């Protein structure tokens, strides 16, 4: 989004009265507003041009931030499973008066659930927690939208 500025500066001029951006055009063209298709094709061409220049760098930046997010997510997923397991076990123990027993059992089950969550979020199966898949879908969509192959970001280990 941030990189669109040079394009805007070239093809739009500031309308002082309304504070918005209006397309610049020749004086005779101004009478009939340009068709949306025309505007659309110009936008697409400009985006493709700009992606050529900055696409690689941006894809790498996105892969980095996605990787950091995934790492933090994995850590929390792991802890949350153990905590919930502990909570359930402790609660059941208080209910039945078997204090250390169920707590220990559910602590292990919780750890297993945490590892399961981590496995799923890393694999991105779209089952319980599939952020990986969602990110892949979004990348595919942005790739289709700009009809420009930027596959280099996806191959890197996220």
């Amino acid at each position: 989004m941030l990189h669109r500025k040079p394009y805007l500066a070239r093809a739009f001029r500031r309308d002082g009265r309304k504070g918005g951006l209006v397309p610049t055009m020749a004086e005779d063209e101004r009478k009939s507003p340009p068709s949306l298709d025309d505007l659309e094709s110009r936008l697409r061409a400009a985006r493709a041009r700009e992606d050529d220049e900055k696409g690689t760098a941006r894809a790498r930046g996105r892969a980095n931030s996605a990787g950091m997010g995934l790492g933090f997510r994995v850590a929390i997923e792991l802890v949350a499973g153990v905590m919930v397991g502990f909570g359930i076990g402790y609660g059941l123990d208080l209910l039945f008066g078997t204090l250390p027993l169920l707590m220990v059992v559910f602590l292990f089950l919780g750890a297993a659930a945490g590892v399961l969550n981590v496995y799923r979020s890393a694999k991105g199966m779209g089952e319980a927690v599939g952020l990986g898949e969602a990110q892949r879908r979004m990348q595919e969509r942005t790739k289709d939208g700009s009809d420009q192959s930027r596959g280099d970001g996806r191959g890197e280990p996220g």
Partner: protein
Amino acid sequence: MASPVEQFKIKPIIPIEIGGIDISFTNSALFMVVSVALITVFLTHGVRSRAMVPGRWQSMAELSYEFVANMIRDNVGAEGRRYFPFIFALFMFVLFGNLIGMIPMTFTYTSHIIVTFALAFVVFLGVTVIGFARHGLHFFRFFFPHGAPILTAPILIPIELISYLSRPFSLAVRLFANMTVGHIILKVIAGFVVAMGVAGVVPLAFLAGVTVLEFGIAVLQAYVFTILSCIYLHDAIHMH
């Protein structure tokens, strides 16, 4: 010097107490009201002109609308459309809470785990109710993977159950931890700037970088919170 966690202190502005329960209007509540008011102004003022070629504000309002609409379409599918108002409200509330917190002297309500947990728990309850309403008792299949031998059920079902129950916790803790840690880091580094005198230029430069990073995290965490809600909704509607 003030402690780095003092910024999270809840102060009552209008003390109210009903039946021994403290329901004061606090600084946290104040900034929730502020953010809801800002969201309302941002959206209604933004689309007021209804221009064919949108101006800046309309563009931003449309961008946020389309962002959430695309997210729901990609991750929930066509059936998710009716949940758009809730998901959009959730996204804007978390996003504005995170961003308002970046303004000095304000209060970040998303840095309190009870706030994020309440949001996450509403999502969790809603998703579970939708799942049972759509699939009835068949929704319990969710807790046993397809094709697993029936002998493994005594271990797998508790694990899947805990995995399912840990969702609101991981959802809440992720947002809360990100916001709290970010704000503490900012305060600690700012403390170094004052303490180091002239050499404080170095941490000041670092502080500028961290502030930019925090803005990124504020947006990213709102996005993550919303997209995970969408994925949970997808699971409840489609059962994998």
